[in-house]
C-alpha cells in the first residue's frame, strides 16, 4: 500500500510545503531553457482544410495553417518562445518529481512514455520572463504529457509560481491545455484544483493581474479551476473548451452536441470568455494588457503608458 512509500530510502517524499512559505525570489531554483528540436517529417496535412503544408513553413507561421488559419497544437516550450523577449525566461521547479503514490495500474509506464514524448519531466512549465518589456510569471500545461493532466506536480508547480508572483509583485499568465485532473493520482489530483484556486484567491487579493489563456483542448478539472479564474480570459481560435468532453456527454446522457459546441467562439458567444485571439496576435495583445495593468498605471497615478 502507499504508506510504504514513506519508507523507501532512495528518495525523500514531500507531502507538503510548510505553509505559509514566503519564498524569496532568489530561493527559486531556476534552470535555463533550451530550444525544442523540430518535429520529424517534411510536411503535414492540415486537418481542417486538407492543405499540404511544409513543416518549415508551418514552423515559421507559429504552427498556424497558412491557408485556413487552423491552429495546430504546440508544445509549452514552443509557446514560450513565441511569447517572451529573447533570453529572459528563467524556469522554476524543474526538479519536482512525480510519485506513483496510489501504485496505480500502468502509471509508471505512462509517466515514462510521457517524459519521452514531451521531453519534459512533468506536464507543467513555470518560470519568470519578460513579454514586450514587462516582467511576468508564466505557467504552461504541456499537452504532450498525459494530455496535460494535472496531478500533484503540476498543481504544486503552478501554486508555487502564483505564490512567487505575489512575493515578486508580478502578474501571472497561465496557458491551459489539459484533459483535467489526472486520474492516476486520484483524490490528490482533484485537490490540486482547490490548491491552485486558493493561490489565485491570494493573487487577486494582492491586486495582481491574472490572464488565463485557454488553448486546445481545455477540459474538466482545469476548466473548473484556474483556467476559468482569470481577470481576463483569452482563447485561441477553434480551441475546444468545456467542462465535460463531448464523448463523455454522449456516453452519459446520450446527448449529441451541436456542431461548433465548446469551441472558443461558442464560449465567447455564451459570455464565458473575453477574447478569441489568433496566435500571431497573442504576444502583442498580452504586451498591451500587461502594460495597462502595470503597477502605477491606475487612476490617480502620474504614469502614462
Amino acid at each position, binding site marked *: 500500500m*502507499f*504508506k510504504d512509500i514513506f519508507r523507501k530510502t*532512495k*528518495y*525523500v517524499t*514531500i507531502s507538503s*510545503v510548510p*505553509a*505559509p512559505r514566503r519564498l524569496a525570489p532568489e530561493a527559486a531554483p531556476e*534552470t*535555463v*531553457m*533550451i530550444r525544442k528540436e523540430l518535429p520529424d517529417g517534411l510536411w503535414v496535412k492540415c486537418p481542417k482544410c486538407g492543405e499540404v503544408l511544409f513543416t518549415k513553413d508551418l514552423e515559421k507561421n507559429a504552427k498556424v495553417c497558412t491557408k485556413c488559419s487552423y491552429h495546430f497544437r504546440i508544445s509549452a516550450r514552443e509557446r514560450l518562445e513565441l511569447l517572451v523577449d529573447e533570453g529572459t525566461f528563467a*524556469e522554476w521547479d*524543474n*526538479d*519536482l*518529481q512525480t*510519485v506513483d*503514490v496510489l501504485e*496505480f*495500474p*500502468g502509471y509508471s509506464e505512462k509517466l515514462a512514455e510521457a517524459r519521452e514524448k514531451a521531453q*519534459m*519531466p512533468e506536464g507543467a512549465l513555470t518560470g519568470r520572463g519578460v513579454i514586450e518589456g514587462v516582467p511576468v510569471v508564466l505557467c504552461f500545461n504541456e499537452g504532450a504529457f498525459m494530455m496535460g493532466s494535472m496531478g*500533484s506536480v503540476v498543481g*504544486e508547480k503552478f*501554486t508555487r509560481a502564483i505564490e512567487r508572483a505575489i512575493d515578486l509583485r508580478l502578474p501571472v499568465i497561465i496557458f491551459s491545455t489539459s484533459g483535467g*485532473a489526472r*486520474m492516476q*493520482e*486520484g*483524490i*490528490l489530483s*482533484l*485537490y*490540486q*484544483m*482547490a*490548491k491552485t*484556486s*486558493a493561490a*489565485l*484567491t491570494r493573487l487577486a487579493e494582492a491586486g495582481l493581474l491574472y490572464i488565463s489563456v485557454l488553448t486546445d483542448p481545455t477540459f474538466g478539472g482545469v*476548466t*473548473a*479551476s484556474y483556467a*476559468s*479564474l482569470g481577470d481576463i480570459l483569452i482563447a485561441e481560435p477553434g480551441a475546444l473548451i*468545456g*467542462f*465535460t468532453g463531448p464523448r*463523455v*456527454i454522449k456516453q452519459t*446522457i446520450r*446527448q449529441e452536441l*451541436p456542431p461548433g*459546441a465548446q469551441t472558443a467562439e461558442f464560449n465567447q458567444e*455564451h*459570455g464565458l470568455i473575453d477574447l478569441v485571439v489568433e496566435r500571431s496576435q497573442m504576444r502583442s495583445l498580452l504586451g498591451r494588457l500587461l502594460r495597462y495593468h502595470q503597477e502605477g498605471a491606475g487612476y490617480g497615478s502620474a504614469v502614462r503608458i
Partner: protein
Amino acid sequence: MAQPLEFEKPLLELEQKILELQKFSAEKGIDLSVEITTLEHKAVVLKKNIYGRLQPWQKVQIARHSERPNFYDYVQLLFEDFIEMRGDRLFADDRAIVGGVALFKGVPVTVIAQVKGKDTKENLQRNFGMPHPEGYRKALRLMEQAEKFHRPILTFIDTPGAACDLAAEERGQGEAIARCLVAMAGYHVPIISTVMGEGGSGGALALGVGNVVLMLEHTFYSVIAPESCASILWKDPSKAQEAATALKFTAEDCLRLGVADEIVKEPLGGAHKDAHRAGEELARVLEKHLSRLRGEAPEVLRQKRYDKLRAIGIFQEKQRLDQSVSETLTNLDEDVKITE
C-alpha cells in the same frame, strides 16, 4: 427493510433460516436451541466478515444505495430549524443543491447540500444530484452571505458529479465550480465539508474546500467515477470494481492522503440501516469540530484552510533532498536536470 446488496445475501439467507427454525421450534414444541445457537454464532462471524472488511466497490454500492439517507433525512436530526433559500438570482433554482440558514446546537449556520432523489420522479427533479451551474452559483450566493454575516458554513456532499450536458456547458459549468473554490478559500468563517454519499469529482469538490473535511464511513471521494475510469483504462466500464480499488478513494484512503480529517462512523452495514443513529453520530462529530473552529480568529481560520490545501499533494523534490538528506545522494541530482 432496506433493499439488500449482493454481498449481503448470504447473511440475509442465514438470518432467514434462523427465523424459520425459531418459528418451527415454537410451533412444534421441538427444542432446536443447539442448532439455533450454532447458526446465530455463524451469523455473528459472517456479519463481522462482511461488514468489517468492506471492499471499495461494496462501499460504492452502499454510498449509492437507493435508500441511503439524503440531506432531508438528516435535517431534523441535525438542526433545530432550517429555512431553505432558493435561486441563484441569475437563471434558476437548481434542485440538486439545497441551501439555507439553519440552527445547529443553537448556532446559526449556512447550510449547502447536494441532494439526490429518493425515487425516479424526485431524481428527475433533482437531476440525480448532479448540479448545473445555477446550483453552484446559488451555493456561492449563500456562502457569500455566510461570510457577510459571520456564519459558519456546513456543506454536505452527495453527487455522482456535476451535470454534464449542453446546458451546463453553455452556462459555464467550469467557471461556476471554480468560483466556489476560489471563494471558499478566501472566507473568514469556519467551513466544514462532509461527504455524505458519493463524492463525485469536481462537482463534489466545489463544496469541499473546508477547514475540516469529514467523510461518512462508507462513502468515497474520487477524481473520476469508477465506471468512467474503467472505460478509459481498460475500455470496459464493467471493470468498475477494479477501478474502485485502484483509485484509492474510500474514507480511509482519503484520511491517509491528507484530504479527509475524520471518518464518521456509520451503523453496521451502512447509514441506510439506521438513519437516526447515523445522523446522531454526524451531529456529534460536526459539533465537536464546529465548537473548536468557532474558537479560532477569522484570519487564522483562513490561513489554516490555506495551509490544509497547500499541504495536499505528494511528490519528490531533488533540491530539498539535497538540503535535507545527505551528500551521498547528490549523484541523483545530476540525472534529474534533463533540461540542461
